[in-house]
């Protein structure tokens, strides 16, 4: 995918001596020093990133980190001191007033923290504002406004006033207003920051659901790391006007770039960041048929595992545990027992993108969790212990995800394919 929005070496300095401050800044002086020397405040320094088409790019930072300034430079509400902002190859930083207006009308729209709905207009009129500015006729505006309101579930309120709506509903109107003009890029400046936690969760889910069909390029500003990790395809973390790390949620939590980011992610709910994919290991399987118990026990001993998935052709038939099989072996009443007899068919499953926090329950059963793909084929398994190891953050140390172990296991699996087909 090609980048929709490219930002290169963007600086924004507030105050009078911006050029002097810029030079000091590029020499490597600190923000506080520059304020003391020139009286200029550094808003954003040396920000560079690319946002790909259809991606949610989250900019996360605490208040004063420059994230709101950064997002406002993207549509020219704040003119950057230096740097480039390319939207489809056109530089917003150097656009004149007329082309800025054109870009804002056609390509980029914005959703605000405090909604910023026009109090003297109805919901439908608010939603249609971007179209009104463009000069679209009244009827066409109304039609499009109702269409978008339908999408956000507010069509019945089209003729109410903003003051009649609750905060969450008002922000849906804000979102609808942003979408009505069908822009390529949607800037969202802490859109859910002013909402109650419960409503915020609903709105986050709704945004993700909408995005599935809309596929807009979204730049989302937040001060809430949980929100960033939930929504962002990629996340940029800002501190003192500088972007300190850009990466996916998993990258940021697994390998924080510095102590600042590390401190941030320290108390994050890892169960909501990582998915089954992150902890899964290659599956060791055995074919059902009439495989003797001893065969299965030997395989488990070889891999040091305590359970095995049993396949019936290409389908998963069930799971056998070392303990059950060992007991079966001891029981001398049945000579040469097969694994079929002690197979557990009620095994736990997960999809690749199932979040870890949903696996706590299945992991509690003590059986490895089967990770299956869309067509129900077994692609990997998750050892219950790995789920917890990953949550505590030392997954790199001793989990089954250790690269070396994985290689060995993969090799073992290949061998096993030949080896487990008893004649």
């Amino acid at each position, binding site marked *: 995918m090609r980048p929709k929005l490219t930002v290169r070496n963007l600086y924004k300095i507030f105050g009078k001596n911006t050029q002097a401050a810029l030079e000091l800044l590029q020499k490597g002086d600190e923000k506080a020093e520059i304020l003391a020397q020139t009286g200029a405040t550094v808003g954003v320094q040396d920000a560079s990133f690319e946002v790909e088409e259809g991606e949610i790019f989250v900019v996360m930072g605490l208040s004063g980190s420059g994230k709101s300034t950064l997002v406002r430079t993207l*549509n020219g*509400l704040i003119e950057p001191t230096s740097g480039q902002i390319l939207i489809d190859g056109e530089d917003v930083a150097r656009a004149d007033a007329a082309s*800025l*207006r*054109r*870009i*804002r*009308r056609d390509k980029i*729209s*914005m959703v*605000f923290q*405090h*909604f*910023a709905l*026009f*109090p*003297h207009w109805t919901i439908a009129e608010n939603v249609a*504002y*971007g179209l*009104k*500015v*463009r000069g679209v006729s009244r009827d066409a505006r109304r039609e499009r406004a109702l269409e978008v309101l339908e999408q956000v579930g507010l069509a019945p309120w089209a003729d109410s*006033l903003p*003051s009649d709506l609750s*905060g969450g509903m008002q922000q849906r109107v804000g979102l609808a*207003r942003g979408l009505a*003009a069908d822009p390529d890029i949607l*800037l969202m400046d802490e859109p859910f920051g*002013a909402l109650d936690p419960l409503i915020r969760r609903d709105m986050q889910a709704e945004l993700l659901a909408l995005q599935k069909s809309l596929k807009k390029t979204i730049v989302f500003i937040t001060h809430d790391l949980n929100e960033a990790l939930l929504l962002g395809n990629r996340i940029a973390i800002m501190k003192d006007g500088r972007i300190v790390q850009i990466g996916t949620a998993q990258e940021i939590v697994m390998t924080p770039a510095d102590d600042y980011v590390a401190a941030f992610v320290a108390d994050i709910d890892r169960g909501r960041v990582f998915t089954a994919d992150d902890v899964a290991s290659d599956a060791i399987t055995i074919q059902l048929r009439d495989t003797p118990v001893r065969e299965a026990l030997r395989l488990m001993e070889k891999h040091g595992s305590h359970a095995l998935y049993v396949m019936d052709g290409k389908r998963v038939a069930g799971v056998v545990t070392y303990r059950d099989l060992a007991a079966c072996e001891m029981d001398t009443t049945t000579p040469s027992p097969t694994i079929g007899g002690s197979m557990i068919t009620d095994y736990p499953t997960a999809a690749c993108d199932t979040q870890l926090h949903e696996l706590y329950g299945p992991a509690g059963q003590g059986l490895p969790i089967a990770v299956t793909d869309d067509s129900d084929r077994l692609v990997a398994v998750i050892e219950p212990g790995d789920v917890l190891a990953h949550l505590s953050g030392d997954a790199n140390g001793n989990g089954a995800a250790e690269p070396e172990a994985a290689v060995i296991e993969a090799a073992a699996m290949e061998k096993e394919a030949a080896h487990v087909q008893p004649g």
Partner: protein
Amino acid sequence: MFSPADIATLPFDDWVNGFVRGWLVPNFRPAFRAAQVPISAVLAWTEAFFLFVPMLVTTAAFALASWLTAGRAMAIFTLVGFAFIDMIGLWPQTMTTLAMIVTSVLFCAVVGIPTGILAARSDRAWAVIRPVLDVMQTIPSFVYLVPIVMLFGVGMAPGIIATFIFALPPIVRLTNLGIRNVRADLIEAAEAFGSTRWQMLWDVQLPLAMRTIMAGLNQTLMLALSMVVIAALIGAGGLGLVVNTGLGRMDVGGATAGGVGIVILAIVLDRITQGLAERSDIRGISLRQALANLFRLRGTAPAAETQRAA
């Protein structure tokens, strides 16, 4: 004791006399005369209109307006008050005064609202306009009566010009204030959707400032009414003339009758315009809030505003 006057005395009054009599009047009198033509025309038309419409029709119209904007009690007051004016024989004078007021307020609005908009959109313009308004509001009106007579002569039109100078500042100030107090996040939103400055003015700023602008119009109207008597000194007619004549003849009754007429007219016009400001379907910030913002430190206002919105 030493005083600066020992060094030099400045013949300031002579300078002003020289400037006005020696230069302004001889050179520009025709220009000023020409400038009052539109005022005279509008005034003549409105006065003719108010004098032509029968008393009962005018009264009914005002009572209806009062009823719609200020309620039933005010409508009854209007009926009784106007009937009283008619019965004390001052109806034609009241209509002349009404025509003067309407003309002055019209010109104040036509000049004042655009000036206020200009002041709101440019700090530089406001830096120039503000001291001018300060002077207009503090200078005693008798001071400019004389040059007005010299430049424009006597009569109704010069009276309206004096009223205009006296009554203009509130509408300029409150238009400026109303527009500047439109919530910053709404301005930002309008900008983010690519509106031009004109679109922003028409769609967002003026509608949201309308309440404050209407309050300014009400203030201007009241000031214009209070100039009625003073304008009569330079030849304007109407109720002001009745009061002045009473004053000159030590005729307490006559002066009181004229005064009561002015008071009744003032109450009716005030309530109607106030009602208009309240009823105008604008959910912008209230005048009280606007004034509160005015006295708050610069820069803190938008934050407070947005919090209110949340």
